[in-house]
Structure formats: structure tokens, C-alpha cells
């Protein structure tokens, strides 16, 4: 397994302002390795350190202790800063606050311009990135007239134009309506296949986490659970101890099992869950 992101005993402490009082520990000696090409969902309640952790992946935060490596490059190395940021693109929650220009294509061109690429290459990347998120038709539009899902896709295109190896999404769907959420999830999954991307996604939506191939649950700055979605969601009680729930479909199956039904737990998504129950009823 080739890893793209690796942390060793990573810790991050917010220094307290007063002397003698210890700082607040956000991340506490975390060891983590993320495989190239994987789709990792990061769960945890507010204040569990998710956002702080991912900000280490592109050197926005530097470790207070331990190390963080991106493709073997130490994020603490100043000279590698832009190389690391190019490789690990980051998309945030509010699409309005990450779009810089007043025309869609100019915004997508922002990162390639910063990288100092030739004009022809920038034009090519802008066209490619817009096509990749399915927004070519909106090339000359003003971002503030687009829907939330469309804006978020533009923000993703702006990151894709850097040709990153990994994209980190910090609750990209938190401000979107259900259809916008679906749009973004589908775009992310398609991009992952087309560009061979590693995806790290922070989310509060369990149904989105179920679509990943690895789920990491953080609590109090360390890893609480780590495994495939079926492993992590197999124990709803353990998750509810730290205030999280499992996807609705899983909860239904779990409760049915408690009542003695022979249904699998890892049927994620409404349709698969319905089929699992149907099969069980047929067998009976």
C-alpha cells in the first residue's frame, strides 16, 4: 500500500494566552496513514479535531509535535509549501467564501495563475476542470447567480485545475439542499475515478460517509474508530457514546437484527437496505 498522507505522533496544541496554564490540546499524538487512491470519510462531533487535522495535510497548520508527510514530503519544510498545497487541494464548507473572481472561468483559472503556468496550459486546465465538474455551460456566468451545488462544483473545479493528487473536502455539503448534496457527492465520486484522486472528506452526513471505502471516527483529538463503513457502522451503540449516529438504513437493519431477523448490516443506501429486507422476508 502506497500512502499519500502519513502522520506520525501528530499533535496540535493551541497555546494558552496566560503563562502557566497549559494550551488546549486539539490533536493528541495521532498516527494515520491514508492510502493513495482511497476515499476516506472523517467523522466526529464538533471540536473533535477533524478540521484541524485536515489542515495539516496541506500545511495550513504545522504540527506542534510529531510529523505530517505528504507523498514523503515533510509539511514543516518551508521550501516545499507550494508543492504540497498543489498536491493536496482543499474545498471548504461555504462556496461563496472560496470563489475569488466574478466570472466562473476566471475563478477556476485562479490557482493555475498562481502556479505561474503558461497561458495555453491555463486555458486547457480551466476547460478540463469545468468539463470534469459538468459546468462548462456556465463558463461565463457570474457565481452569485448559481445555486449552492453549482457554486460548490465551481469551487471543486478551482482545486482540480491545480491537478492535485488528493482533495480534502471539509463538510462540502453542509450548506446545501438535498439535491445540491447529491450533485456534489456524485461529482466527487466521478472525479476520483477520472483523475485517480485520493479523497478525504469531513462530513456530518452518515449516508455520505457510507459511500467511502474507509471511515475514520475522531474523538478528542485521537482516532476512536477506523475501518470500512460496514465495520464502523456495525456497532451503533459505540458510536452513540460519542454522540454520533449510524445511517438510517443501518439503524433499521440493526434494530431488526436485535429482534432476531437475519439481515446483513452493511446494506447501505435505501435501495440496498430495502432489498436486504425483501430477501430476508422471501427466505422466511
Amino acid at each position: 500500500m502506497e500512502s499519500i498522507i502519513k502522520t506520525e505522533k501528530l499533535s496540535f496544541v493551541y497555546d494558552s494566552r496566560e503563562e502557566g496554564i497549559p494550551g488546549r490540546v486539539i490533536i493528541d499524538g495521532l498516527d494515520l496513514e491514508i492510502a493513495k487512491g482511497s476515499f476516506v470519510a472523517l467523522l466526529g462531533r464538533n471540536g473533535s479535531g477533524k478540521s484541524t487535522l485536515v489542515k495539516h495535510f496541506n500545511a495550513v497548520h504545522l504540527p506542534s509535535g510529531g510529523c505530517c508527510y505528504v507523498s514523503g514530503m515533510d509539511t514543516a519544510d518551508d521550501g516545499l509549501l507550494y508543492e504540497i498545497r498543489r498536491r493536496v487541494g482543499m474545498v471548504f464548507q461555504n462556496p461563496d467564501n472560496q470563489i475569488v473572481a466574478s466570472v466562473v472561468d476566471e475563478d477556476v483559472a485562479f490557482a493555475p495563475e498562481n502556479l505561474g503556468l503558461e497561458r495555453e496550459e491555463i486555458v486547457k486546465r480551466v476547460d478540463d476542470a469545468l468539463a470534469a465538474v459538468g459546468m462548462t455551460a456556465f463558463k461565463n456566468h457570474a457565481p452569485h447567480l448559481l445555486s449552492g451545488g453549482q457554486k460548490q462544483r465551481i469551487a471543486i473545479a478551482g482545486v482540480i485545475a491545480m491537478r492535485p493528487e488528493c482533495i480534502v473536502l471539509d463538510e462540502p455539503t453542509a450548506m446545501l439542499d438535498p439535491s445540491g448534496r447529491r450533485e456534489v457527492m456524485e461529482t466527487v465520486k466521478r472525479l476520483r475515478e477520472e483523475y485517480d484522486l485520493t479523497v478525504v472528506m469531513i462530513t456530518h452526513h452518515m449516508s455520505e460517509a457510507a459511500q467511502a471505502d474507509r471511515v475514520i471516527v475522531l474523538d478528542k483529538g485521537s482516532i476512536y474508530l477506523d475501518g470500512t463503513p460496514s465495520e464502523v457502522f456495525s456497532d451503533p451503540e459505540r458510536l452513540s457514546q460519542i454522540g454520533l449516529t449510524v445511517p438510517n438504513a443501518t439503524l433499521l437493519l440493526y434494530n431488526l437484527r436485535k429482534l432476531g431477523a437475519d439481515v446483513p448490516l452493511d446494506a447501505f443506501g435505501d435501495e440496498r437496505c430495502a432489498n436486504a429486507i425483501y430477501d430476508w422476508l422471501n427466505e422466511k
Partner: protein
Amino acid sequence: MLKDITLGQFFPGQSAVHRVDPRFKIVYTLWFIVMVFTASTPCGYALVFLFLLYTVLISKISVKLILKSLKPILIFMIFTAVLNLLYARGETVLWSWKFITITQEGLLRALYMVLRIMFLVAGTSMLTYTTSPTMLTDGVERLFKPLAKLRFPVHELAMMMTIALRFIPILIEETDKIMSAQRARGADFESGNLLRRAKALVPLLVPLFVSAFRRADELALAMECRCYRGGEGRTKYRAMKAGGVDLAAGLVMLAIQVGIILLGRFGI
């Protein structure tokens, strides 16, 4: 109410005026301002007027719109006219009553002053009417690039303009939202005297500022994540190339300018 505000109104089009390179268009606009001030004879003013009319006509911007742009300065024009009318010294007295004397020279000067202001406003609005805001900022940045050598923050200013333009609609929408929210809690923005109304704006401005700062913080982070590191080593997506239109526009302006100067010499 706030939705009606359009800053730097731009009317897209494909006319020759639209296609002039923004850098040249800015320079030509400045030149036009100079041109207005060099005109001193009736024929000179007529020439400036014809040039302006020609530009408006080929740009397919409606004349009505240009007249509308003059409306906000109507009071200013009247004020200027009256002042010039009353204070200009002249020989030929047309009308006199107590301390008020109106001379022919004064009348002519008032007319010229008003024409000058009209030409200036109409001419400079043509710049924003036919150039997209982004092209305009880009033009300004490239035009002032030489100043960067004197440590003048050209790129930074252009970036600030770009971001300001981007966030105007967002902040307007937000103001609307905050106003509704405060109204729902009984705030009154419309009644009372000026002082009272100004005071009523405080609960509007405070949340607006807080939110603007939060947005700025997030935007800065997003920009950093997209490898932004100032203007150095940055390339440009939009190409700007001077072409035939720019040359043609320049030649027309040169001809008009020469005409104005000659007419001024002969005093017609």
C-alpha cells in the same frame, strides 16, 4: 430595494467600442477628458459632441441610458450654470436688476461649463458601460504595472478591486437578510429623524461587519490553499493584445484633437 444597485453598470456587446483593449480604453478616456478641456470655441464643442455621439451610436448603448447617467448631476449642473451666469464679467450687458447683471459672455460661459460637465460624465460612463468590471481591473493592473518597480502595490490593489466586485452582490444580499431579521425583531429603519435613522443602522452594520470579517478570513484561507502568494510569478489567464480597433480608435481621436486645436487657433 438594494437589488436595484448595479455598480459599474456594464452592458455586454460586440461593438468596436466594446472590443477596444481595456488598457487603451482607459487611456483614451483620460485623453477624452483632456480633449473636453482643450475645446474652447463653438465648433470645438460641436466636434467633441459629434465624437461622443458617434461613439455612443456605434456602441449601440441607448442614448436614453446616457441621459439617465446625467440625471444625478443635474443639480450640480444647474448650480454651475447659475454661478457662472452671475459671476462672469463681461461687456455686453443683456439684463440687469439691482446687483444682478447677466452678460452675454456669462451666458456663453455657463453654457460651455454645462456642456463640459455633460461631456465628461457621459464620456466616462461610456468606459464602464462598455467594459466588464474584470476587464477594467485587469486593464488597470497592466497599465500601472511599471509603477510596481517603485514599490507601488499594483497587483494588490487590482486583487482588492476584483474581490470587492465579487463580494458586492453577496454583501448586498446579506444586508437584505440582516435587515429582515432585525425587522422581525421590531427594528425600525424608516421612521424618525435623521439622527434616529442613523442610530437604527447600528444593529445592521455591526452584524454585517462581523460577517464580512469572517468571510475575509475564510477567503484568505481558501486563497492560500490555492497557492496564492501575491503577484510575483503569477501568470494571466486573459490575454490582452492591442489590435486594429485600438489603432483605429486612436487615429480617430487624434484627428478630432487636431481639429479642435486648429479650430481654437482660428477662433471659430
